[in-house]
């Protein structure tokens, strides 16, 4: 699954790690297997430029997807997607980050 082996300093998903996708879908926030935690550390630890985050629209009920710029004072970029639960937001961003890391498009 890894694009290449050049990234030796950082963990890259292997084909076996596709099994972790379902585990994440079932429980995106909370207890994870060590392998999933390692994957999430990679996905969530990205630098601040163009990093996904959420903006509260309605407390505990609605969030809007956004991206930070990594530049102090530069407005957070609001994106069109809205979510009514955090799990949906997590899954959406997981797919985007997985694609960026592996090149693979996850469906559903």
């Amino acid at each position, binding site marked *: 699954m890894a694009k290449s082996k050049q990234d030796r300093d950082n963990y890259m998903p292997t084909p076996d790690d596709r099994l972790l996708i379902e585990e994440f879908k079932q429980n*995106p*926030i*909370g*207890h*994870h297997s*060590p392998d999933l*935690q390692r994957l*999430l*550390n990679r996905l*969530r*630890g*990205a*630098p*601040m430029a163009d*990093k*996904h*985050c*959420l*903006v*509260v629209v309605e*407390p*505990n*009920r609605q*969030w809007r997807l*956004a991206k*930070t710029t990594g530049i*102090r*004072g*530069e*407005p*957070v970029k609001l994106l069109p997607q809205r979510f009514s639960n*955090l799990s949906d*937001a*997590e899954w959406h*961003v997981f797919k985007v980050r997985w694609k960026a890391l592996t090149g693979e498009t996850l469906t559903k």
Partner: protein
Amino acid sequence: MMKITAYADQVSVAPGETINFMVNCAAKSYKADIVKLICGDTNPDGPGYQEKVIRTPATGTYRGRKQVIHAGSFVEIGNAAALNQLQSFNMQAMIWPTTPAKGRQTIISNWSHRKQCGAQLIIDADNGGIGLCLGTGKGNVQTVVTGKPLLVREWYFVAASYDANKKTIQLIQEPLHTHVGCNDQARQKHVAKFAKLPTHTEPVTLGAQFVRYDKGRSVCQQHYNGKIDSPRIASRVLDRGEMEALKRNAIPGELVGDVVAAWDFSTDITGTRVRDMTENRYHGEIVNLPVRGMTGWNWNGEEMSWKHAPEQYGAIHFHDDDLYDAGWDVDFSLTVPKNLKSGLYAARLRCGDDDESEDYVPFAILPPRGEVTAKICFLLPTGSYMAYANEHMAVDVPIAQLLSGRLVEHDRQDIYRHEHREYGASCYDTHSDGSGICYSSRLRPILNMRPKYRAWIGGKGSALWQFNADTHIIAWLEALGYDYDVVTDEELHQDGLAAIAGYDAVLSSSHPEYQSRQMWDAMDAYQQTGGRLMYLGGNGWYWRIAYHCELPGVMEVRRGEGGIRAWEARTGEYYHSFTGEYGGLWRRNGRAPQRIVGTGFSAQGFDISSYYARKPDSYKKEIRWIMAGLGKDERIGDFGLVGGGAAGLELDRADANLGTPPGAYVLASSEKHTDIYLVVCEELLINYPGLGGHESPLVRADMVFYPTSNGGGLFATSSIAWSGSLSHNNYKNNVSRITKNVLDRFISNKPLLE
């Protein structure tokens, strides 16, 4: 974007006293109400937001107006006539620039912005080397530069001289340490365009260029980032040997008549004054609190405290985003009615119907001075609120999503603060030059110390942290019908034991992390003289802080040699400039938190919370009253609005080696934390695998009780998330039950051991 922001001049006020509110409002008018805050949590899955409008003379509609903040620190020297009239001169300083490439920055400004005349020693915008700017007005400006970029965080001797008679300029830029391949040294002569400089009447400034006054505030531009040490101005061109002699903090006798200003930053470090050593006495004042007590160009590492070698601490570190007092004009005031009960209140300001048109300014109403009007005191941790004031980690730091184990959520206040950096940041942030923020003031809108605010760090669920989390304790007291007073850290610091001595029980907040020596000593004395403290939180009594001796509403923390640190103080800069005390962790001051509250910080994680399991001590006959009503193996707090459990976010453990008293009962311990929870770094003498919640026994909260001298006692929940579980099932749950069992006993006359 928020249309209204505000702050107050006080955070606590007693009946009969006046609190002033300063408001920035984009609308023509706004409505102000005073409200009693009960529950600030807007989560519809909880008890719901609760406040009560109190009619006061301050209630009313006020005219809206824009008020702005001028951030950035500098030294201002007013009434410096001899400086303003200089013709030939020599300016020099030792500098340690942190952002030489950011654009034009001013080291010494003897300049009239209005007339565009005078002289400035600058860092040049184009190449980041030093330069001299001369102006004679009407657009006649000459700027000469070395063209040699300064290195970041290296000491330089810099000087610029101007000979009006010969029309020559000399620039000197000398690194203290040379590096092979670096072309950062210069000694240059240039021809000056002007034979005379017009006089002006503007203040001389160091670290920025004065522009104008705005309602009594000095507004500057071209703020410099970095340290300045030993700035000097002489009234003639000096030779290199004379300049060298002037580096020292004593003016050589042969130069006394020529040196017109020589500022010594190593004196009055605790204060706001900057001393001029010459007979001219061009003393200055620091503005917006640049950092003092900083290692100077000649610091040799032999002394770590500025008190022991002040002559090596002659540097001030300036930042373009320093802020002390926003300095806004007062918009309305409240003189607290005599009959208003002590509690947590706020000015609620609304200039429209949407969320963006609303702001709150919270404050405590104290009992009348010298009086106690309840058995219970809730201690509002204003020092800790200040440490977190306007914290920016979620937009500045990539680890925020790792710490919280999920996407971070930004509230509207976060978005506004991010775009308005002039509102200043917290002691968890870094300045624009990357250096840690060690001072934080409450004399500015603190937009994360608000009811309804959701914090990225506050766990899955209600996302509560500090102020808004603490409203759950207030809501619990109100729901169960307890009468209570509210006292803040500032009273505890100023009045000591007297601030709380009259109460049968003191309740802490969810996260009383920052404590001054005076606060620590007062709380220790309270417990030893029969006082009973309920520590209803986690990671308390952790950092040592200092309050300024002269300026109200500002605290200092030096993130020294241990602990969970958002930044690290530089070596030699561990001592508070406000007091000279050694800063950092209380644990490194010989007082681990276990010594005062039985438990101390052990692990943290910010995703989900967990529960406590009862421990054998909890069944002991003499303290059975604590768990009265609970089943034998009943899990405690496996519910809650903060991460879904009562044990979460930051967790403390009992440890006899760190000071947990021998008579302490460990009533329960939390378990089953995620691997987002990790052991605190001060426990890591050798780093090793297995430090997460799934494996490490140090990832736990220990609920502890012990009696103290003279009938006093201590109960600790040791978890920040505790307050978020109190309201579960309409306050009928075992977290609420235990809290009630302890509080009822603490305010009774019964002994604590049966």
